[in-house]
């Protein structure tokens, strides 16, 4: 009973973590950008989705759709207002670009959070479940919504896999992550590829946001937490490795769930953090990272 509870809850939450992290790691892989405004992007999608759904009574699905759209928009803004200017800046020495992008997106993330805070207050909001009701699974009373969310996550991740491995655009992404210069020499415009990867990122982060809103609920205060957890998962899995982050998402997700069930809900996040520190010490490139 307890075991199956842990199994099910862990699975759903991990799937959500995974979805949130995949986009994050994809961007790093292809364009070497660590987007510390990640939580902000998810937040916008979640809040817009919730707002549309509950204030205009459009129902969760249309709300979710618009939320994802908002996430996409926010991803573009992040790219065009913060990331690209820094990448193209003449005044910023190339050696310091990385740290400037980190600081820039960090600030941008705060602006998003405070802005949302102002518009929607920092009360947690929850979207009406897309699939109400509960089903009995392995003897555990599980919300239908929770299951469907796990399913959606995996369907989307599957689609992503197809995109990367079965389409020409996907090949270009993969190539860009291995050797951008080589790709330029073959006549592909990196700027287009970056735009593509930010679009994919926007959709993934947006979806993760609205799903979170309808599963656990979010408040503008969560932005930092969301970024931190995505960042940790991605580093744990190995920066730039999609499969790595998925595995890491499940490691973290189950570690947290097990802690919450078997030790104490209050200690929930700690073992994951300790594990992260440990991995940093013994294997800095992460579980699946290439040096």
């Amino acid at each position, binding site marked *: 009973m307890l075991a199956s509870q842990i199994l099910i*809850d862990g699975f759903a939450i991990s799937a959500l973590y995974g979805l949130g992290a995949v986009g994050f790691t994809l961007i790093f892989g292809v364009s070497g950008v660590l987007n510390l405004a990640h939580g902000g992007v998810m937040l916008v999608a979640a809040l817009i989705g919730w707002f549309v759904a*509950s*204030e205009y009574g459009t129902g969760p699905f249309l709300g979710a759709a618009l939320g994802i759209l908002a996430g996409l928009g926010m991803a573009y803004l992040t790219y065009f207002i913060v990331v690209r200017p820094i990448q193209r800046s003449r005044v910023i020495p190339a050696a310091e670009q990385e740290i400037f992008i980190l600081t820039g997106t960090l600030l941008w993330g705060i602006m998003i959070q405070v802005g949302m805070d102002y518009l929607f207050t920092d009360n947690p*909001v*929850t979207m009406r479940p897309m699939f109400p009701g509960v089903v009995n699974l392995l003897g555990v009373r599980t*919300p239908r919504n929770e299951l469907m969310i796990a399913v959606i996550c995996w369907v989307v991740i599957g689609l992503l896999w197809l995109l990367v491995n079965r389409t020409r655009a996907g090949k270009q992404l993969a190539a860009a992550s291995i050797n951008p210069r080589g790709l330029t020499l073959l006549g592909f415009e990196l700027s287009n590829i970056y735009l593509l990867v930010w679009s994919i990122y926007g959709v993934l982060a947006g979806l993760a946001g609205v799903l979170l809103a309808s599963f656990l609920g979010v408040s503008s205060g969560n932005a930092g937490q969301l970024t931190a957890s995505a960042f940790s998962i991605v580093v744990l899995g190995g920066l730039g490795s999609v499969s790595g982050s998925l595995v890491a998402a499940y490691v973290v997700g189950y570690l947290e769930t097990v802690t919450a*069930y078997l030790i104490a*809900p*209050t200690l929930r996040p700690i073992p994951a953090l300790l594990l992260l520190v440990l991995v940093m010490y013994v294997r800095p490139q992460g579980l699946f990272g290439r040096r």
Partner: protein
Amino acid sequence: MSHPISVRGALLCATRLSAAVGLAAAVGLTAAQAAEPIKIGVISEEAAVAGASIRHAAEMAADEINAKGGVNGSKIEIVAYDDHSSAADAVRAFQRAVNQDHVKAVIVSYISEVVLAVEPWAARLHMPTITPGAASNDISKRVHDDYAQYKYMFHGWLTSAFIAQSICDGAHDNLVGKLHMKTAVVMSEDAAWTTPLDVRYLQCLPQAGLQVLDHIRFNPDTTDFTPIFNQIEAKKPDVIITGISHVGVQPTVQWHDQQVPIPMAGQSSQATTSTFWKDTNGATEGVITASAASPGVALSPTTIPFTEAYTKKFGASPSYDGYTSYDEVHYIADAIQRAGSTDADKLVDALEKTDYVGTVGRVQFYAKTDEFTHAMKYGKGFVTGVEIQWQNGKQVCIWPADKCEAKLIFPSFVKLPQQTAAQ
């Protein structure tokens, strides 16, 4: 009211401006006007519903008093500060209020952490200070332990101990009396105000007839409550007694979505606001919480008029600390009147003699000899608080019996003892 959020946004921003203007105006006037306005500082978090309530209510009270000609010929002026619910910001705001804006009294926050950080400054700067919503016992305990230092601090809302007591009393009448419940699990967030709350729960719930099977404290930044509810359910209690304020929407919604078959009662501060129904998409149906007062329940002649006026003005009924903050402005003014001066020590003496019937009932403060010095008196004839239950979109008063007499209704997934007995 098609989209209150945007409206609320507009209101916030509008009032914010007016506050700014008011400030400017005040600075300008002081020189000219003969009778300076009496300034009262209000420190709270704008972005939080409970925080906004405090200021809105205080301003309403001030307007009423000024409409009647003010106090000793001078107007009451509310100076508002946003503390983002951060102790540091609150302390800074407090110093600003005292040193720069020369307020005569301060109404501060509904969060115990913040109030506890401000309290020593109230003592150091000799500023009559009162909290409309924080509950931690330590606030009044400090006053008791070091009266000379801390006498400037007043506790304008029930201490955790009394909140717990009132909940126990309510539970005894309703849950045990009517629904024949025997067991409970206490579930509260890890925060300043719940520490004494839980202590009292563990004493008074058994006395009220509910055996406490388990006692769970969780981190206020918890977002996933599934494990907690599952743990509780495994214990098979008849009821969950809550002590939550920082969190509210998430546990409630997840309780509903997971169809946890155990009713929730106790203190869920966010559930005391009328917007909570919408915030939870109605998931709060059947949730019971203690509150300062309840729409449509005449704890005193002023309760209903205030609630209506407030709702009319701000589009939502006041949060529990809205009631208290409204009263506080009134009895501070009253105290100044009696003291005939705004001198801190005189004001404190006057406040100690407060006997004022406000929206939450008859307000008096315990004396320095009592363990809860300067805390609100609890009990019949004073302030008891009420218990409300969310029933299809409305907050319905279910306790105390002498004020209201509504039936308890729970959503279908909740299993009540006698039903289980019947099966």
